[in-house]
């Protein structure tokens, strides 16, 4: 069924200010393996480097998986993935949380970020699923890595935390979004890779306006890098509105400059995108977006470039970017691009999750 976004047709702009000089010295390379305090969002670079976000330490690790990068090539579907991961970690499915899913670019094995245990005692684990459906724990003890502490993370007391929600690699930089559990932080971090002491990256403060009237800070929590007309953009979602785009070319560190982006669509209250992937099919590109309450949406990206900015509220549903709801994909908890023809998803309810390779719609 075809539908359209934005009954009330708000196309909302937002503004980014580049703020602050880098204040944190990054980069540690050690032979003892990454000492993650927690594990959350994952992504791979094109060379197979695994970028893992550690919210507890407000640190991004770039890990060389070496021989751990691949078992049998591909990713086979695995039923009861949460139970299998839990068994591997000596516990019950109720005691684990799968925080993210990423696919190795060459082996096409899937990697899961898992927190094992409850509360402050929960420990991070990295789990691999290969083309035979084998579920194995990746021993990170001896893996080489580099890391960077996110710049300009407030040094709070024991109560404040920085919950990192997504990490992506594009344009030679690692992009990280996150939320604070205290102030209404609106940071998007951009860090050049390889990590260097000379440039610890930049924290971008995101603003969002409604119809050129009021603007607020606006935390980003899900995004995907995407080129529009050959120019790199970030297509993302904020806590207050679902889908926006902004060009990254104008991000000049420490310039204090502002610029405006465009909201592509609104999904309404009570729904948030979980993951976004971009893929090609039949000569066209699409954004596939898994949502908390509104299923999976397939959005042709051709409209991203041509959508005219709307500066006044509209009450028609036809405004905004059209999408197709993929009814065959339900209860999606995690979504990642597997290869040219398939995605890999974690679907189902708690304690009954399956990892499935699913044909791209």
């Amino acid at each position, binding site marked *: 069924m075809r539908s359209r976004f934005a009954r009330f047709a708000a196309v909302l702009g937002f503004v980014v200010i580049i703020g602050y000089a880098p204040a944190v010295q990054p980069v540690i390379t050690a032979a003892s393996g990454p000492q993650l305090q927690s594990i959350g969002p994952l992504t791979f670079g094109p060379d197979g480097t695994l970028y893992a976000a550690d919210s507890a330490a407000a640190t991004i690790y770039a890990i060389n998986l070496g021989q751990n990068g691949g078992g049998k090539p591909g990713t086979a579907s695995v039923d009861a993935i949460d139970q299998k991961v839990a068994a591997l970690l000596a516990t019950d499915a109720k005691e684990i949380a799968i925080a993210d899913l990423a696919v190795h670019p060459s082996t096409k094995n899937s990697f899961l970020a898992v927190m094992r245990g*409850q509360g402050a005692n929960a420990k991070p684990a990295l789990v691999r699923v290969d083309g035979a459906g084998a579920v194995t724990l990746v021993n990170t003890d001896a893996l080489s890595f580099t890391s960077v502490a996110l710049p300009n993370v407030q040094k709070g007391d024991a109560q404040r935390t920085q919950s990192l929600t997504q990490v992506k690699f594009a344009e030679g930089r690692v992009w990280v979004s996150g939320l604070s559990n*205290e102030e209404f932080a609106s940071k998007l971090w951009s860090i050049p890779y390889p990590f260097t002491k000379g440039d610890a990256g930049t924290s971008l403060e995101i603003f969002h306006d409604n119809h050129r009237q009021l603007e607020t800070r606006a935390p980003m929590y899900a995004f995907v890098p995407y080129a529009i007309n050959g120019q790199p953009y970030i297509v993302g979602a904020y806590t207050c509105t679902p889908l926006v785009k902004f060009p990254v070319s104008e991000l000049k560190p420490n310039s204090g400059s502002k610029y405006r982006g465009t909201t592509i669509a609104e999904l309404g*209250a009570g729904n948030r995108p979980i993951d976004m992937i971009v893929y090609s099919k039949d000569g066209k590109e699409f954004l596939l977006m898994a949502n908390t309450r509104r299923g999976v949406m397939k959005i042709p990206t051709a409209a991203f470039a041509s959508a005219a900015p709307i500066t006044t509220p509209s009450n028609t549903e036809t405004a905004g970017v059209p999408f197709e709801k993929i009814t065959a994909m339900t209860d999606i908890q995690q979504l990642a691009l597997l290869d040219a023809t398939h995605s890999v998803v974690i679907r189902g309810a708690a304690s009954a999750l399956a990892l499935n390779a699913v044909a791209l719609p």
Partner: protein
Amino acid sequence: MTMSTARPETFLGRAAHCCGVVTLLALSLACQSRTRADAGELRVVLHPPDGAARPAYVEITGLDDEGLSAVRSRAADEAAMSSLFRVSVADQTDASLPDIAGRYAVNGRSVTFTPRFPFDAGRAYRVRFDRARLGTPDQNAIVTSIVRLPAAATRAEAEVVAIHPAAPVVPENLLRMYVEFSAPMGSRQAADFVRLIDRTTGQDSVVEEAFLPVEADFWSRDHRRYTLFLDPGRVKRGILPNRARGRPLRAGRAYALDIAAEWPDEHGQPMKRAFRHEFKAGPAVTSGIDASAWRIAPPSPGTRDRLAVDFDRALDHAVAARALGVEQNGVAVAGAGTVEPGDTRWVFVPNAAWQPGAYRLTAQPFLEDPQGNQIGRAFEVLVDTPRDPNPEPFRVPFVVGANTVQR
């Protein structure tokens, strides 16, 4: 005393049929012997953790010289070891579930397995040692045993001890609330356990989709505090969710925050009791914090009397606690600051006596009220309102030695 609760398990099927010698021993350390066991008599012992120094591990003893030699020859081959000596979660019914990931070692006359992640207290684990894989014809027995560490305390201990803001009336554009607990909680997020109730009419009705539906971790580091974010898409004016459904809180109405007792603590136990926090919503507060209107009551010189600062409004309980400080000649004054109940006053007690002279109260630029308003800048401002990308702390001078209230 170390507990080991290895228990015999009935042998089943083909394994029992083909096995020559099966020995199952339930041992505690009290009866554990380090003398060489008779050939074929294997012991399975679960050693509990030694504090933080050593995690719990499973030990197999009783192998004869040939068996030990065979194990040693395989010790470096993880796949061979994991087929010889398997440890798995015992209460799982799905035979396809993998064994526990762990490390093997041969120490003296024993073989040990230490899981990568510690055994859970009270959980049953199955240990299976397959001597057939050692290649010794007369020792082709499979030994299995169920072991478990003592169960942890299972008493409900946690309860909600505070909600911030605690005021009986909060602005309708409130962005967040803090829930404080008496004991560390688990990892579950609030969605299944917290409801906003409209009780204006005298009958409870749930305010649907009041909170931010994001699966981010909003626990404090010690898991004694959870941050509830009201859906900012509904709080911010003019955005589709706001226009479609309005703010979750509306001025003049009466509410309750209901927190279910089922919210599990770090041991998986429910709380002692459910909790209800009743409050009303008042008019929105949509202006920036006016620090120039704060009232500072300076302390007397030569004392460690508290400095009291009365704000122009209730500030964010958590942010204020770390955003405020005192400096003298540009140097931070050591001491303890506290946000008083109601979040409209901050008091500071220095470690050393106040000296006569000029001081400054410092407020970091990230200071907010619970509506997201900052000093001199409202949360919602007219578009293109300039903003300093590198804001300095806001400073309010005061003098110790004067007896008048300063503004």
